[in-house]
């Protein structure tokens, strides 16, 4: 009786889940991102390229307030550096990618790539000696420099629309990275008053002009910068920005689940042992 009931309850719960998933909003295509599956990791080349798209395109309007420059070079970040011994010369070389095996993680304070990115920004600060406002080059401990000092300035600079912060945008929207990608590809190039028609945006009308065009950025790794490529890359970067510990979490989860499976098996055997010969 109760068994049948519990099965039907699970089925009902699943049906409700499906009903929720099929909520309103625009058309969002399900794209097979590298991080979708339970064991899927970030495609770090895509995160690096996506960072470039963010920095050269999105960053002129959108902040990522929860990200600091150092996050780029921490373990699991797109610019994490490793020392790897070159088998031919025998010397240690620095590479910006986790090697297949071996390699010694370079602390982010020693990471020249991240330092260069941080120093390119000009941060307003207080001079520690004079107490006067002063501009200085960014440090890796600084948060990403926002394009506008506050929301009012952001609205004033964008015709009244507020470009939302992007650091958790994939978590803050139904559809996540798929939504971000679909939004960037969803322009029909039609206008409706001051707004643009976008098939992915809820309501179908968006204030943001299409940010991407073919060749908008020039990738240093030689990848052709089509609009779709840029959209995939920046969606991957924003997924990383919202969930930088995903890889670590999934790895830990695998170990935890394996442990729990073995534990459950042993506990089941112990349970059978204890109850052997007991009528119940």
């Amino acid at each position: 009786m109760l068994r049948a009931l519990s099965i039907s309850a699970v089925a009902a719960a699943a049906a409700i889940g499906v009903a929720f998933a099929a909520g309103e909003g625009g058309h969002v295509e399900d794209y097979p991102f590298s991080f979708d599956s339970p064991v899927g990791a970030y495609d770090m080349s895509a995160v690096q390229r996506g960072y470039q798209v963010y920095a050269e395109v999105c960053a002129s309007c959108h902040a990522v307030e929860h990200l600091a420059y150092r996050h780029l070079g921490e373990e699991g970040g797109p610019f994490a550096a490793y020392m790897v011994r070159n088998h031919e010369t025998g010397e240690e070389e620095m590479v910006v990618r986790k090697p297949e095996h071996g390699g010694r993680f370079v602390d982010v304070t020693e990471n020249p790539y991240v330092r260069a990115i941080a120093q390119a920004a000009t941060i307003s600060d207080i001079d520690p000696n004079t107490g006067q406002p002063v501009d200085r080059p960014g440090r890796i401990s600084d948060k990403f420099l926002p394009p506008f000092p506050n929301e009012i300035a952001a609205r004033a600079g964008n015709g009244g629309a507020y470009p939302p912060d992007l650091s958790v945008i994939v978590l803050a929207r139904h559809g996540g990275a798929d939504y971000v990608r679909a939004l960037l590809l969803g322009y029909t190039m039609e206008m409706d008053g001051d707004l643009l028609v976008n098939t992915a945006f809820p309501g179908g009308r968006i204030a943001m002009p299409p940010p991407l065009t073919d060749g908008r950025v020039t990738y240093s790794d030689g990848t052709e910068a089509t609009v779709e490529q840029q959209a995939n890359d920046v969606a991957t970067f924003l997924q990383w920005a919202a969930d930088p510990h995903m890889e670590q979490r999934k790895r830990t989860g695998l170990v935890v689940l394996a442990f729990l499976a073995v534990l459950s098996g042993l506990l089941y055997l112990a349970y059978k042992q204890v109850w052997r010969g007991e009528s119940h």
Partner: protein
Amino acid sequence: MSGPSTYEPKSGFTRWLDKRLPILRLSHDSFVAYPTPRNLNYWWTFGSMLSLCLVVQIVSGVVLAMHYIPHIDFAFDSVQRIKRDVPYGWLIQPMHAVGASMFFLAVYVHMFRGLYYGSYKAPREVLWILGCLIYALMVVTAFLGYSLPWGQMSFWAATVITNILGALPFVGESIQVWIRGGGAIDQATLNRFFSLHYLLPFVIAGVVALHIWALHEVGQNNPTGVEVKSKADTVPFTPHATIKDLFATSLFVILFAVFMFYMPDALGHADNYIRANPLQTPPEIVPEWYLLPFYAVLRAFDFNIGPIDSKLAGVIAMFASIGVLFVLPWLDTSKVRSMRYRPIAQQCFVIFVAVCIGLGFCGGQNPGRILAPATFSATLNWVEGGEVRQEPVSADSDAGYAEAASAAEQALRGQGAALVASSRTGETTGAARGVFGGTARSQSVSAGTMEELDAAIGEAKTAAAASAPYFIVERRVPFTFTVTRLSQLLTAYYFLFFLVILPVLGLIETPRRVPDTIAKPVTGQAAGAS
């Protein structure tokens, strides 16, 4: 129930301690020697899971509180900082958030089990009431905790819930201001919510101790609902129940881990990753899944009941839906505990579970969503060609305008106008228009929703606009089976189950015969019973 203590201190120190603080004796009697019915099934293992959940929530919560900042400007950022920069924060924060859902999942199974097997009946009324009290405290604690990340859903859930308290007559407004610490949800609200969210789990822990105390006084119920008759019907808690609980809890932890490591945000709402904004209401305001059924009950009342307005009726019903659990032991009149032997009650119970799940579905939907297909239709009447004539309307007073306008329309109609309409331009002035000549045309449109119908009307108007300046539109709105209607049906059954079905059924239902193997002590039939 437990009988005399069987604890025997083994060492010199334990003998010394036993004379001064018999805490080891208490532990031994409660968790080792405690006699537990041998026929308990897996539905009885959820109590252990719940104690695990409480410990997980308190431990992870204490760690989170070390890093969380209860300030409206920094709370949202501090949660992000915990997930990004605090060592193992990426593990502890989802543990706490997913843990709340797992806690409620386990408590619902635990409660439905108590309901099905009649665990609330004498002598376990106090045990049941303490359980209901724990559940009510859990609901409050979860609500308070949900507001702490200070996202959009945190803020607006807090707004909605404190708003509905304002519906209470006479004292509502004072209570609302008292709970919020001011007129609106603000810094004072966040501070007190944080303080209470830290306090209440320890109150829960205290009531849990009472719950376990009461349990150990009256003994556990069992699937047959027939009291344990002798020592032969029981096994010692350790190792028998302990190992079974550990095994089941281990499976539960696997489910917990799957959510925590692979779907940490699946049970939450995306809007809570948007910083709270008092000036922008989110498109939908919904609570976490575990409170959706009560939200559906609250919103089911879209009508006034005599002097009680719909808002207050919803609030009363929502509180009553939890409150009715407290008096359940005196509502169910059946002498038979377990629904295993109550064929009709069993079916009503199954429907009740489905109703609760259905209410959860309704709570998550837009209340106006139409569930059954309906046809909205409209007829447009207009005159093609013809000539428009306008007559001014003026009345002596504001109240006399309607009369004057209809008189003017009547006059135009008298002159042979095919279509008349009037529009008001001031308190006592307006204009009546009539279309003369031309050919009368009519068109019907239909659609599945009101919005689609309006769109269809708009299209029809545009198509005919060139030749006709004025339209008369008759809309026909059919009865629509919306989410609100479904909520009303389900809410009705929810209360019917407790207030009518259980009291009446107990008096008229003929229970199934309890098998002899159960009516007599088990060990006599050890070979047959399994």
